[in-house]
């Protein structure tokens, strides 16, 4: 049964990964071993998932499900990849609410909060290397840098919302692309 297979396959991907790029090798293995996609298609889907809004894992699930089993397949795969959020995370949410006032929880969070800030900073550095520079820091894109600087001013100084900033950045990208190709 294809739907069940899609569902189970993405349940496994969901539970054994932590989002983003860490999902790619797992998705790759599952797609190839079931013969649902070729390696080239997996590479394409990663590129397309980056272009469309939404988490990579969900976009891959929707695309793989759609290609193999239509809309029902897409739904089965998506619910599968969301199962950790629906189960483990819901339990964690209930747990967090219950122990919110506990002293130990407060102490643990005192360390967790800054470590998370450090991890966000790491993402900023990693994403900067991908989005503003070419391979091995060669070929820094001045167009991307200008758009990035503009977006920073829009968000922090002018306090624009994220959607508005994204739309303007896309328009600037289009403008630069058409002008300078």
């Amino acid at each position, binding site marked *: 049964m294809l739907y069940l297979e899609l569902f189970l396959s993405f349940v496994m991907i*969901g*539970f054994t990964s*932590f*989002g983003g790029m860490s999902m790619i090798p797992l998705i790759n293995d599952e797609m190839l071993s079931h013969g649902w996609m070729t390696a080239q298609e997996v590479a*394409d889907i990663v*590129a*397309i998932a*980056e*272009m*469309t*809004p*939404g988490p990579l894992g*969900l976009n891959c699930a*929707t695309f793989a499900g*759609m290609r193999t089993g239509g809309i029902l397949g*897409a739904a089965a795969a998506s619910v599968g990849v*969301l199962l*950790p959020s*629906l189960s483990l*995370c819901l339990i*964690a*949410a209930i747990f*967090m609410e219950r122990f919110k006032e506990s002293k130990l929880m*407060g*102490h*643990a*969070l*005192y*360390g*967790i*909060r*800054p*470590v*998370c*800030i*450090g*991890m966000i900073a790491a*993402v*900023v550095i*990693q*994403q*900067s290397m*991908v*989005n503003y520079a070419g391979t091995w820091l060669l070929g820094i*894109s001045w167009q*991307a840098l200008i*758009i990035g600087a503009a*977006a*920073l001013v829009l968000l922090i100084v002018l306090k624009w*919302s*994220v*959607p508005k*900033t*994204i739309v303007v*950045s896309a*328009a600037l*990208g289009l403008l*630069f*692309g*058409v002008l300078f190709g």
Partner: protein
Amino acid sequence: MDQKQRSRLPDVFINFLKFGCFTFGGGWSIVAQIQKEYVEKKRWITDEELLDFTSVGRSIPGLMIGNASVLFGHHVAGIPGALLALLGIVLPPFAIMIAVTFIYGLVKDNAYVSYAMMGVRAAVVPIIISAMVKLFKAGMKDVFCYLIALGGLVLCLFTGISNVLIVVIGAAAGLIYMEVKERHAVS
């Protein structure tokens, strides 16, 4: 579930549908959007709580965006809130991907699409920075916090240690530090 929580459900669902249309850059843009809508504008949660949802969401398997939505939704409107937040954040990308599978060939190598995407990708880092700047004050209370943050940054950048383990190390460091600090205060 009380009246206040129930009255929040439509707001959560509609806003998360909106967030879902603009979640580029691996989940951090939803943090920036929640910050603006629910910390600054509506004041339903604090920066500290948002930071907690983010860290816990990151350390649970699955999609961080989905996890953070569930944690936020449950906090403001119970289990129905969690489910509606998740559904809201997931529906737009789901619908868009279904459309994209039909025009896959057109989108894949289209120059205009890739120009616009260059612009969107260039905005991802500023979006993450704008979220981080606001969460910074919530997480950084003393020198210990700066050291821990630096540790998290270094571990994340230069080692292959998983995010979960880094969060666990942070939790352990917090427990030990606060214990020592309290004993010190007593003696």
